């Protein structure tokens, strides 16, 4: 059932001039990630690029192994979403020595040697946090008393969690009007988001705002808020990140107030850049994903053609 033909493909790509790309994905830890994978697979097919896909099951070791194996298989280009920022130098040097260009997607690496990869295409998580913070600041601009906030973080240690917290704080932190009552990890999942929100609601009777690092946790929290007899979006304002379909639905239903988009649809841009790199064109070292933010009204308009 699982793909029979074992095209080990050391040479398979080169002969017919077809580009072979090795792509190492983090895993399939969220709907966002799955949409990301799908986008890459589909756009590769559309661009006529042969994709060697490898799933790292959330482990950096596995990604390094996969990249090594791509080098051994002599692919034309390697792209990957690093699980972690650090620790890629050795294997990227191997790729460079083998003359295989590398493109980073979704998350960056912190290597000082920027010649190890051609470009990084993805969102700026810190910026996302800032966007969320700015909306909050604006939304509560006229509010008098202290604004009581709670935060649902992503997995402890995950880059988007750290950055989105940092971005948000950089905007809000200085303003004494805003009070962060509690901030706990909800592990990017709905179930955990709900559980943590349950506890927040018990401990803090008047919460004005919830900032969730992704839609899923926000959606879980909505359930908790409703179970506590409050109205999400009204009694408690909610801002989240991602803009997946379910999040957009809740946004247009008025249960979420604002979503900062973090698009998983990196595929087309990636394929585009791939061709440019292999054609020897110079490309910018940082390509930002085309992303926006959504208010409730914008969500209503965008929802019908939302794919993921």
């Amino acid at each position, binding site marked *: 059932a699982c793909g029979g033909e074992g095209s080990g493909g050391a040479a398979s790509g080169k002969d017919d001039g077809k580009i072979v790309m090795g792509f190492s994905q983090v895993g399939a830890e969220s709907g966002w990630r799955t949409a990301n994978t799908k986008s890459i697979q589909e756009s590769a097919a559309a661009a006529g690029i042969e994709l060697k896909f490898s799933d790292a099951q959330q482990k950096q070791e596995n990604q390094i192994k996969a990249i090594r194996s791509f080098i051994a298989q002599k692919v034309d280009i390697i792209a990957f979403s690093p699980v972690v920022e650090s620790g890629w130098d050795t294997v990227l040097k191997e790729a460079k020595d083998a003359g295989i260009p590398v493109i980073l997607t979704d998350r960056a690496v912190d290597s000082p040697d920027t010649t190890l990869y051609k470009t990084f295409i993805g969102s700026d998580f810190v910026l996302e946090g800032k966007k969320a913070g700015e909306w909050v600041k604006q939304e509560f601009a006229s509010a008098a008393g202290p604004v009581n906030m709670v935060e649902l973080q992503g997995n402890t240690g995950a880059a988007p969690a750290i950055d989105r917290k940092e971005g948000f704080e950089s905007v809000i932190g200085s303003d004494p009007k805003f009070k962060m009552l509690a901030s706990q990890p909800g592990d990017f999942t709905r179930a955990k988001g709900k559980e943590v929100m349950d*506890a927040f609601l018990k401990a803090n009777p008047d919460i004005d705002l919830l900032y969730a690092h992704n839609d899923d946790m926000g959606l879980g929290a909505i359930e908790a808020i409703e179970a506590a007899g409050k109205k999400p979006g009204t009694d408690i304002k909610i801002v989240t990140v991602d803009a997946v379909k*379910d999040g957009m639905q809740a946004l247009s239903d008025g249960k979420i107030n604002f979503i900062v988009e973090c698009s998983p649809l990196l595929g087309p841009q990636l394929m585009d850049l791939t061709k440019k790199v292999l054609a020897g064109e110079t490309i910018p070292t940082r390509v930002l994903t085309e992303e926006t933010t959504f208010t409730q009204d914008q969500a209503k308009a965008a929802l019908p053609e939302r794919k993921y």
Partner: protein
Amino acid sequence: MTNLMKQRLFWPVAMLALLLIGNLIFEPGFFSVELRDGHLFGSLIDILRQGSPLMLVALGMTLVIATGGIDLSVGAVVAISGALACQQIAGLDDQGAVGGVLVAVALALLLCAGLGLWNGFLVGVVGIQPIIATLILMVAGRGVAQLITDGQIINVNSPPYKTIAAGFLASIPVPVIIAAALVAAVALVIRRSAFGMLLESVGGNAGASRLAGIRSRRLIIIAYVACAVCAGVAGLMVSSTVSSADGNNAGLLIELDAILAVVIGGTSLLGGRFSIAGTVVGALLIKTLDTTVYTIGIPPEVTLLFKAVVVVVLCLVQSPAFRARLSRRQPAEVSA
């Protein structure tokens, strides 16, 4: 005997009480339980409600551990159960139809029973070491769950399905009732039949049990099936809570919590003697610990340290050797 059982449970119960009181200090309203719209509402109720899936998984795990085994696949089973149920329900014309939801739930539990049978077969018949036998399903099972959901989160909008986790019956949350009913059922079977004793015998000395004519194979299979079905019910609860199925994250690492609950409850991982009541206390203790983290507002960076300290303290106070040493400390005993 009953006296001894009580003693065995004394320390976990004391620890649970201590944690609850700790919460009370940080949050004066912690113990308040009120009736809101005819529903019981409050932090204590939350602990029971949120603890229900863990309690069920731990319940099944207790039976498996009693045979001297272990089941690492429960987390995957939790995910598969929710995934299949939601996938079925999502395909219904009318998601609100009770009949359709019941069929979906039954299918999910049936599949779980099948998975338990698979584990039981590998352990009891093929004779593979339990940790490895169930590791196979632990790894592959998550893949299966994601295969069912196509890696996405499947949403359902089904009031009957939602009842499993969010409903109330006679003011009491439905998941609590389900968990209590299953615990009671298992306890009853154990008390009223010889199942518990034979299980303990197999776990205590498999060779001697065989020579005493016990069909351990059958018992082992039953234990793994029961465990998987319990995990399946837990999986339904988990997915019903958020009206969606998340093949990757549902029940992630629940096996560790469940094993911890069983052991805190006084059951040895070596098999043999087990205590259902202990497991229940253990599960509540773990859930309370989670809640405590949120209530006290322990920073995420030190949450694990906090848990480590609690587990260590709990193990130590429960350890007779530790208490003996403490009380022996004063007069310089010539023991060394």
